């Protein structure tokens, strides 16, 4: 609960608004509204203002502030890749020696066709893999060819890995951290 109200997420530094008067509840409601997406009307921020009890300026200030402090990673069109034809979505998982995982993770992050890359804990004996990367591709052959080039390019021939293609999406939507289902 505490982090939802942390001062970092209040537009304290904004010169245009009297920060102490921007209601924390209004900001929480704004986050709930934003998790559902922006209204597609000429003045979307005014609509959000009406729904949250903030002013239109306060809404825009809060969003700008959240973009600059990193709470909002990006603001824009969120694409459903599968609909567009990115139907070969592979999660590739690797069992990398602990002392190499960070360097390799950073290297993989720079590979253009890798769309996500992160480290997660192993769960032995069932799950020996600690590095995950995602390849969103248009067909399976191409993804497997990209994987081959990755293995060759980073000398991963002796690393145990698995490729988990996804064949069905049961749900795909934005995270709802503060709003209800």
């Amino acid at each position: 609960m505490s982090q939802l109200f942390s001062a970092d997420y209040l537009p304290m530094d904004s010169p245009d608004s009297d920060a102490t008067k921007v209601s924390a509840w209004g900001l929480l409601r704004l986050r709930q509204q934003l998790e559902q997406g922006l209204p597609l009307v000429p003045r979307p921020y005014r609509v959000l203002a009406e729904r949250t009890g903030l002013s239109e300026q306060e809404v825009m200030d809060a969003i700008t502030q959240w973009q600059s402090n990193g709470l909002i990673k990006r603001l824009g069109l969120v694409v459903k890749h599968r609909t567009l034809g990115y139907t070969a979505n592979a999660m590739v998982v690797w069992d990398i020696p602990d002392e190499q995982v960070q360097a390799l993770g950073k290297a993989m992050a720079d590979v253009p066709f890798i769309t996500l890359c992160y480290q997660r804990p192993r769960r032995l004996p069932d799950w020996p893999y600690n590095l995950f990367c995602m390849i969103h591709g248009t067909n399976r052959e191409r993804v497997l060819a990209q994987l081959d080039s990755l293995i060759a390019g980073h000398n991963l021939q002796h690393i145990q890995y698995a490729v988990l293609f996804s064949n069905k999406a049961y749900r795909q939507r934005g995270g709802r951290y503060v709003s209800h289902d």
Partner: protein
Amino acid sequence: MRLDAADRQLIDSYQRSLPVCERPYEEMGRTLGLTEEEVIQRLSALQDQKVLSRVGPVFEHSQAGASLLAAVAAPEEQMDLVAARINRAPGVNHNYAREHTYNLWFVMTAPDNELLEEHLDELEKELKLPMLRLPMVEGYHIDLGFDIDWEALS
């Protein structure tokens, strides 16, 4: 799904920096040579066709609250049933079938870790299936706003 040039331009230009001003769609239209009304209509249509899940912010998950990737090994013939049960649990925002013994992979979110663990415990008890819980240790690249390769899609 085939999109026309204007729809593609909208996607190419605005996956990450939608204007924050009183009339954002008018501003986008000005850049792309469309009217405000056309921009709104196109975005609505793209949303209806499920090309877009929404227009709005993507929150940084480590700051926004708690989230965790989990997987269960469901019997093949019960996948749809188990997937539906997972979707009924609170805060599930991704849920995919994948080709592996652990064949259902989902992301659950909650306001904090305690609540998240509670929800996962409840789900695990209900499903009676082995569950992997895989919190992120470190993210090296977490951004799905990559440039769309229209050529590969055509």
